[in-house]
C-alpha cells in the first residue's frame, strides 16, 4: 500500500493531476505571448512617486519557500495558493473554498498561519513562507505529524495539511497549550469528516511530550 502511494509514477500513464497541470501551463504560456515583456514596466516611476509598478502581465518574482528562494512568473492577480500549487508543484497546500473560510490552504507567513488563497503571491515577497512540505514529509516526520498518525487524526485527509499548519504554529507559540487553546488554534479549519477530537488529542499528546524521540 505504502509503496503504491509513494512509488515512482508509471511514465506512460498521464495522471489527472499531470493533465490538469499541463493544461494550466498551456494557458499560462498563451497569456505570456499576448502580454508584452513586463521588464519595461518594472522600472520605478520616480516622477509619479511610484516605487514599484508590477503587472498586469506576468512578472518573475522571488518567494522564499521552506528556506529556499524560488523564482516564479505570475500575474499580480495570482494568489500565493495558486503560485504554490500550479507553478511550484507544492500541492500539499489544498484549494477548497478559495475564500479564506475553510483553512485547507493554510501556510505560514513568518511563522504565522494564514489562508494562502487570500494573499496575492507578490505580497508574499520578503516573507518566510512555510508549506506543509516544509513542515514534514513521510520520510521526515515531525512530532505533530507522528501524533496525527498515532491518534488517527485524518479521515479523508483533505483538511489535514491546513489543520496541521494551524496546529504547528499554535504549539510553537504556546508549547503548554491546553484543550481550549488547541480548539481555538483550528477554529479556522473546517473538517467535514469530524476529526476534531482526534486532532485535539494528537496536539495535546505533543504538549505532554508523548512523541519524544520522533524529531
Amino acid at each position, binding site marked *: 500500500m505504502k509503496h503504491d502511494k509513494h512509488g515512482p509514477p508509471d511514465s506512460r500513464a498521464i495522471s489527472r493531476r499531470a493533465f490538469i497541470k499541463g493544461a494550466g501551463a498551456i494557458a499560462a504560456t498563451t497569456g505570456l505571448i499576448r502580454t508584452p515583456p513586463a521588464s519595461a*514596466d518594472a522600472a520605478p516611476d520616480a516622477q509619479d*512617486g*511610484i516605487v*514599484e509598478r508590477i503587472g498586469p502581465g506576468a512578472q518573475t518574482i522571488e518567494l522564499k519557500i521552506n528556506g529556499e528562494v524560488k523564482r516564479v512568473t505570475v500575474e499580480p492577480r495570482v494568489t500565493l495558493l495558486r503560485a504554490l500549487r500550479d507553478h511550484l508543484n507544492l500541492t500539499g497546500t489544498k484549494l477548497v473554498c478559495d475564500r479564506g473560510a475553510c483553512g485547507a490552504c493554510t501556510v505560514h507567513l513568518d511563522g504565522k498561519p*494564514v489562508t494562502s488563497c487570500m494573499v496575492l503571491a507578490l505580497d508574499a515577497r520578503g516573507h518566510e513562507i512555510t508549506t506543509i512540505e516544509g513542515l514534514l514529509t513521510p520520510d521526515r516526520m515531525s512530532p505533530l505529524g507522528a501524533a496525527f498518525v498515532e491518534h488517527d487524526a485524518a479521515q479523508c485527509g483533505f483538511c489535514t495539511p491546513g489543520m496541521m499548519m494551524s496546529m504547528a504554529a499554535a504549539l510553537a507559540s504556546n508549547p503548554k497549550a491546553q484543550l481550549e487553546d488547541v480548539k481555538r488554534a483550528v477554529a*479556522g479549519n473546517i473538517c467535514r469528516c469530524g476529526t476534531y477530537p482526534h486532532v485535539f488529542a494528537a496536539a495535546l499528546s505533543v504538549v505532554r511530550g508523548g512523541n519524544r524521540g520522533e524529531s
Partner: protein
Amino acid sequence: MNRFEVLTPADLAHAARLLARQGHVALAGGVDVIDLLKLGIIAPATLVNLKNLPELHGIEPGPRGLRLGALTKLHEVAEHPFIREHYTAVSDAAREAATPQIRNLATVGGNLLQRPRCWYFRHPDVNCLKKGGDRCYALTGLNRYHAILGGGPSFIVHPSNLAPALIALGASARIVGPSGERSVELEKFFTLPSVDPKRENDLKPGEVLVEVNLPPPPAGAKSAYLEAREKQSFDWPLVGAAAMVASDGASRTVRDARIVLCAVAPIPWRSPEAEKEIIGHPLDAERARAAGEACVRGAHPLADNAYKIAMTKVLARRTILKAAGIEEA
C-alpha cells in the same frame, strides 16, 4: 478575477493622488479586496499597495490614549496587553473576529472599511441597490441576517465588530486625502443607506484611512464586547454588543456609558436610549435589563429576523453587566 496592475506609491500624498483616480482601489491586508475581486464585484485596473507607508503602521499607547495604525493586524490588536487592559472591548472584538488565519492578515482599516456580507450584495449575478440596481432584495427575500434598526432603502448590517467596540470607547479616524487631512469621530464616519445606499462610510475617493485614535478611557471606565453566532468556532455575528461603563466604585452609580450594537443596523448602532437607562443610576441587573429593552425600542424586524430583537436585549444586558464587572444572577 480581472487582470490588474499593482502600484506601490512612495508616500502617502502619492497614494492619495493615485486613489483619487478612476478604477484605482487600495490594497492593504487584501482579505476583503481579494474576495470582492474573485466575485467580480469590483474590477479595478489598478491596486494601490499601501503596505509600505509608515504612517499606517504601529500600535502606540501613551498618556493621550492609543494610536492604532490602519495596517495593524487584528491578531496584534487582540494580543496587545495595553489594549486588553485599557480598551478591553476592542481587544475582545478583535479576538472574536474571523479565524486565526484571517486575523493574521486582516487589518484594522480593512475591518472598518469592508463591504457588507449580505448574500445579495455578494452574489455576482444580483444587481442590488448597493450595486446600482433598483431594489434591496433582502426586503422581500431571505433576510434572517439583515437589519432590524436603521434599515431602508438597503437592509444590510454593517459587518465590522471592531467598529462598535472602538465607538464605545470614543475612537476617531484620521483620514488623509489629496487636499489635506481630517479627523472624524468614528461614530459619524459611517453612513446610513438613507443618505446613500451605495456606500457604508464617508471615505471619499482619494482618501486613505491612516489611523484610529482612542482617547484615554474615562475615569473608572471598563468595557466589554460580546457577540452571538450560529457557529461558535468562527462566524459572522448574528448580534454583537459593545459597552463602556464608567461608574463610581462603591455606589456603582454610572457616570458615563456608551452602548454600541453590531450586526443589527447598516452602521455600527449606538443606542443613546440604552445609555440613558443606566447613566446617573446605580447599576444592577434590573437597570441593565431596562437598557437592553431600550436598545430595540425602535426596531422594525423583517420577515425572518425578529429573533434579533430578543437576542439584542439579552446581549446588551449581558455586555453592560460584564463591562461593569457584575455577575449575573
